[in-house]
């Protein structure tokens, strides 16, 4: 995905999250993550991304 496209979908996601509301945001993001993961080439890629996100939450508090 090009930077301009990433920018576009980022904004789309922000607007959608706002419409979804804070209560349902974790559920929404979990559903979206599942959809995105299922479209990856293999599980190794998904596991690497899961670990990366976990480490960044862990490392940065």
């Amino acid at each position: 995905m090009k930077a301009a496209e990433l920018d576009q979908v980022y904004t789309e996601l922000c607007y959608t999250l706002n419409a979804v509301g804070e209560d349902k945001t974790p559920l929404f993001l979990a559903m979206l993550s599942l959809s995105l993961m299922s479209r990856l080439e293999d599980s190794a890629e998904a596991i690497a991304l899961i670990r990366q996100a976990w480490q960044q939450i862990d490392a940065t508090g």
Partner: protein
Amino acid sequence: MSMISLPEHVPVLIAGGGPVGLTAAALLARFNIPSIVIEADTDYCEGSRAICMSRRSQEILSWIGADKALVDKGLSWVGGRSYWRNIEVLHFEMPHEPTQRYAPMVNIQQYYLEQFIHQALEQSQPNSVYWGHKVLDVQQTATAAQVLIQLPEGNTQTVTADWVIACDGGRSTVREVLGLALKGMQYDGRYVIVDIKQKTQRPVERLAWFDPPSNPNSTLLMHRQPDEVWRIDYQIRPDEDPLEAVKPENVLPRIQSHLAMIGETEPWEVLWISLYNAKCLSLENYRHGRVFFAGDAAHLVPIFGVRGLNSGLDDVSSLVWKLASVCQGTAADSVLDSYSIGRVAATQENIAYGAKSTEFMAPPNRAFELMREAALRLAVVDKSVASLINPRQSTPIVYSTSPLNIVAQDQWFSTLAQAGAPAPEALLTDERGQPRYLTEYFGKEWVLIVFSQPALTTTLRQTLLNLPWQVVIVGAEGLHDTYQQVQERYGFAEGEQGLILVRPDGYILGRWSGLALDTCVNAWQNKGF
């Protein structure tokens, strides 16, 4: 600043003597169209205000001879760094290369810029700025506008103007008396803008901090200016009273905390404090009969991405050559409508980019806040998301919807050089072996670029002499394309011949493969010239 009496009639009256209005006057003077500038204030602006001048703005200022003073005094820069807490998450550079004429951006206090433009105007058209004069009313007939002006002594006088350019800023009087209103939206997030004087050894870059330890949960921007001045912008909390937030006792501790964090320990003092919130507002049309709107009078765009003053200069660069052509009887009135069409579209693009920057710099709700935190945390290790942090700095707009564009009939290799795009820069070598930039030829006349490796026939050369355009021959004769920049950027194949017709504001009107001059001239005439 000597005071002379107002004329009864003037071809063009410019309301507002800020950088946009002064540039409009200086550009008109290049076309020998007399104008006067009516400015309510008695001197240049207070506070440094707009500080980042784009490459395109530097080119426009070169047309009036104000570029050298700007570049000499200003601080040129090419990129910046963004930090999340105190970790660098983005190092960006705007497009630049060693052969370029101007840096992508130069920082200058607005009052210096106004001074440089005014000095250039004094050279070409002395004593045409009426300081301390206020426009009170504008009445239009089919052939002229009657402008009621209040003199510094308090009495009034009416000036008849063939045309009016309203460059009188965000609170435009001309806009108000014409009963027009800006439309759009504004963001709640407020920023305090502070200039301080402090010595520094830091390179000139755009610096941004998100949630820095010095000011947790805030966003803070820093830019260097000449005279050892820092511009510092920071976001205040939603629950803060803006009037309290701009009091020095509330500003100084935040600044001190940040300067200490980044290791800037020289003594410092505050020069200027202001308050800002991002707005996306525009008139629907920039032409109303004999009145044109330009700059903040026409549109207010978010500061993030520095599209405010830069787009104002683009407004007048697009307007003045059209107005001058109509005044001189060499263009149809309809050409003036293309000003509004092109620049309203430009504002929409500036607003789209500016809104995106604002949504990152000042998240409008919890969803944007959450996503920004995710992007910043991830960008520490995952560079694929770092582009989201990029501030989307001002770039020249392509007039893709301009009615003047002549759509290419042939296959071209370069999308850079399409009709409606700013004509790409190229470094060339003249017949004496001296370096010449292609953009040096822009800004006044129509320019026909003739690209031809084989020498031109005598007949063709004769025809070129009779055209009402400046002809720039690039190839075997004339200018040498030493670095193949014309060939690459304009999309010519090896050995190909072609014509590019460039508008007086440096934008491409049309392009033709081969040297069919008749086709080119006919297409130009059909556009109202």
